[in-house]
């Protein structure tokens, strides 16, 4: 029964995609109804599976799942199938909730129920409709023209994520991965009328594609080494042993190379340095898309994949050993990205950009955690981050919506996304404020009450306890900056006085947008409590560390819970509370960018990485395409060959016509035959003299001749 449900989990969103595209594109309420229904069905299935999974003792040993023979390969089959083990059960839990929340939120975000806009065209964000009320005109938000298409695309996105999470093999995981890549392209470029959106979509796709190529190489390597792509096959102890001990390239073992290649896929998909450049630009898409991509699904998929492949990455390593090559690389990149992105976030003014860089930074945390071998901590932070980041993005969308309402109401056309135009919104949008605050505190790691604290604390504990001090200090600094810029964001947006007319007239958003915020806020607070370490002072031991037991059971051996030490706890309290306090302190009186001391050009311009990549990669590629391939190879060489062939054929044809066709065939054969016939005819016609005696003489002559001949031949 469970296996059937698991197979069916990705199906409703896929069907929803097709139905909306093919049939209900014009009917908005039916489209969102189908999409919500599909998300709801998958959510229901996920909850059933999750609850069943909770009921199984030692679930890690008795996972759900089934597989089928799919591709015949010589004497064996390549199998594909589904599986739910503790890791994917935890992941499917948050995927189901966040997807459903985002779907519901999208209804309100795209202004369902509002009138059609005055000048709205498909492909550009809606600009508002003028309505006349009591003889007095004002602009109200208008419904998104491509409303149904949006729901179709996010349904496809949900399908990709569900497929990825339930698969038991690298192949269908990769399929889901790529589908999400496609959907990210479609959705980031949703408002295709904007050139910036189009460019951002291409950039996202290209950058993640680079990662995907290496990931595909890794998958190919896995297959050629082990002959299978199923996790159960690859993670068999003897297989892992073989992988770890077989040297491959550059002196690194096969497992190491595979791990590195697969990790590069994650670097692309989860926007780690150096492939992080697409994620901030991806803010061009509508906010539910940002929430989906950057919190709930896509970037989480990258981290999920690398957590899933942890046995392979850590093949040959056990706790206490120094990290092997792959894990060192992973830890380095994760930690570096965490601090790198945090520094950039300090200088961003767009409310969504701050959250984008914070996502990159938090993903760095997870990856660094995995790199140092903290399997459960990484998974824990993945889950909690999904909830509070989705909450923050949706909250920011709510803020932007409120600002837009103010813009339309007052006609004061300011950028509704610029935090320096906001201020004092806590009075205008209370529910948004409280939920956003909860999310922000979770992100910062506010102690005890928020989930983010528990997961981040566990990462610090693992880093410190296993002696990875560089990683520990780097992550701690990043956490401080995280708290700082989060509070900066909250202060600028919600506290103080409104800094523009639009902010003064902002209003709360409809229930379809508020309800998901509340639900996600609940999880952001409570989910942390399932992972309280046993040895925590005071609270530890009251509730068993369910998460550690549950998710840790995925591995062959349950990882040891790290021993408690005060240093990481105090550090995390210090950085969290200190960062929050400093943020509030510095920014409560800042009213304009000029007063913001963190508007450093290097940080604002993202350490100039976009410019570096443009110079190093984009310009040469463009040159090759335009000058070399198009102009030289295509037009000059290939077209030149074609033209000369054509000229030659023309010459040949002409020669044939002049020297062979006309004289020989026309004159000699054609006319010649005619003339010959004419001549012989006019010669032979004289036989028909019309004179009888002539005929008779002729016939008797012949008769005599024949008679003589016959006589001498036959007699």
């Amino acid at each position, binding site marked *: 029964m469970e296996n059937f449900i698991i197979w069916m989990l990705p199906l409703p969103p896929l069907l929803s995609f097709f139905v909306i595209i093919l049939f209900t594109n014009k009917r908005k309420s039916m489209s969102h109804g189908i999409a919500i229904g599909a998300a709801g069905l998958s959510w229901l299935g996920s909850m059933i599976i999750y609850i069943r999974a909770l009921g199984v003792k030692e679930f890690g040993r008795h996972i759900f799942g089934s597989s089928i023979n799919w591709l015949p390969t010589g004497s064996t089959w390549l199998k594909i199938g589904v599986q739910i083990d503790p890791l994917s059960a935890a992941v499917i839990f948050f995927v189901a909730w966040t997807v459903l929340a985002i779907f519901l939120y999208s209804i309100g975000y795209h202004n369902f129920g509002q009138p059609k806009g005055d000048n709205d065209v498909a492909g550009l964000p809606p600009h508002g409709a003028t309505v006349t009320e009591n003889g007095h005109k004002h602009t109200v938000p208008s419904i998104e023209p491509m409303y149904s298409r949006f729901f179709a695309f996010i349904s496809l996105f949900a399908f990709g994520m569900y497929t990825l999470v339930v698969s038991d093999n690298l192949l269908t995981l990769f399929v889901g991965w790529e589908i999400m890549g496609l959907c990210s392209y479609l959705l980031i470029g949703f408002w295709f009328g904007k050139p910036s959106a189009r460019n951002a979509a291409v950039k996202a796709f290209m950058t993640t594609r680079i990662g995907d190529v290496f990931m595909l190489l890794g998958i190919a390597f896995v297959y050629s080494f082990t002959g299978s792509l199923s996790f159960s096959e690859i993670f068999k102890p003897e297989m892992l042993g073989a992988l770890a001990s077989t040297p491959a390239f550059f002196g690194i073992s096969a497992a190491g190379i595979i791990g590195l290649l697969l990790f590069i896929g994650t670097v692309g998909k989860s926007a780690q340095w150096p492939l992080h450049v697409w994620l901030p630009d991806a803010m061009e898409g509508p906010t539910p898309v940002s929430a989906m991509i950057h919190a709930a699904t896509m970037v989480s998929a990258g981290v999920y994949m690398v957590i899933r492949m942890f046995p392979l990455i850590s093949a040959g390593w056990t706790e206490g050993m120094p990290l092997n090559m792959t894990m060192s690389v992973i830890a380095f990149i994760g930690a570096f990205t965490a601090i790198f992105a945090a520094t950039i976030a300090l200088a961003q003014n767009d409310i969504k950009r701050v959250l984008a860089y914070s996502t990159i930074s938090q993903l760095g945390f997870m990856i660094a955690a995995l790199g140092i071998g903290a399997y459960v901590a990484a998974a824990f932070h993945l889950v909690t981050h999904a909830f509070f980041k989705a909450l923050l993005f949706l909250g920011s969308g709510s803020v932007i919506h409120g600002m837009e309402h103010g813009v339309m109401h007052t006609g004061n056309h300011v950028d509704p996304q610029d935090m320096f135009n906001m201020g004092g919104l806590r009075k205008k949008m209370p529910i948004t404020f409280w939920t956003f605050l909860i999310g922000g505190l979770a992100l910062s790691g506010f102690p005890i009450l928020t989930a983010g604290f528990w997961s981040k604390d566990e990462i610090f504990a693992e880093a410190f306890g296993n002696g990875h001090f560089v990683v520990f200090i780097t992550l701690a600094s990043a956490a401080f900056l995280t708290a700082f810029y989060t509070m900066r964001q909250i202060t600028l947006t919600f506290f103080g006085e409104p800094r523009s007319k639009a902010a003064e007239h902002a209003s709360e958003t409809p229930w379809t947008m508020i309800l998901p915020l509340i639900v996600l806020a609940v999880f952001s607070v409570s989910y942390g409590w399932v992972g309280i370490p046993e040895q925590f002072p005071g609270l530890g031991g009251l509730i068993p560390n369910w998460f550690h037991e549950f998710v840790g059971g995925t591995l062959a051996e349950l990882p040891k819970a790290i021993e408690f030490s005060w240093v990481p706890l105090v550090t995390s309290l210090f950085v969290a509370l200190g960062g929050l306090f400093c943020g509030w302190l510095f920014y409560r009186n800042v009213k304009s960018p000029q007063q913001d001391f963190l508007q450093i050009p290097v940080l604002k311009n993202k350490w100039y990485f976009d410019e570096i990549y443009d110079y190093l990669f984009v310009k040469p590629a463009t040159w090759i395409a335009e000058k070399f391939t198009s102009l030289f190879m295509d037009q000059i060489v290939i077209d030149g060959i074609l033209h000369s062939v054509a000229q030659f054929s023309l010459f040949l044809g002409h020669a044939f016509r002049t020297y062979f066709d006309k004289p020989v065939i026309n004159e000699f054969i054609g006319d010649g035959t005619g003339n010959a016939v004419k001549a012989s005819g006019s010669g032979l016609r*004289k036989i*028909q*003299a*019309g*004179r*009888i*005696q002539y005929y*008779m003489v002729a016939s*008797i002559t012949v008769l005599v001749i024949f008679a003589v001949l016959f006589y001498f031949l036959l007699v």
Partner: protein
Amino acid sequence: MSIPLSWFLILAAALFSIGLFGVLSRKNAIAILLGVELMLNAVNINLVAFWRYQDPAKMAGQVFAIIVFAVAAAEVAVGLALIISVYRSRKTVVADEIDLMKW
């Protein structure tokens, strides 16, 4: 009688050749028909000679000769009628000048 059959046959052959010569070489159409008559008579001589020398009891030879008479008569009648008709329209009986069926 003591005349060998071959004498009659040689006579008939000679008569036939003379008639053939006349047919092929005379200009006048009526002269051509005269040659034809000679040839028919040669045939008749042959027939009757064979009748007498092979089996005089059976009458086939004579009957055939009588049929030849009838046919010759018919042919002369029609031929001369044609020549007269042609003479009326073309004013000539020279065979070589009656050549409308030429190319």
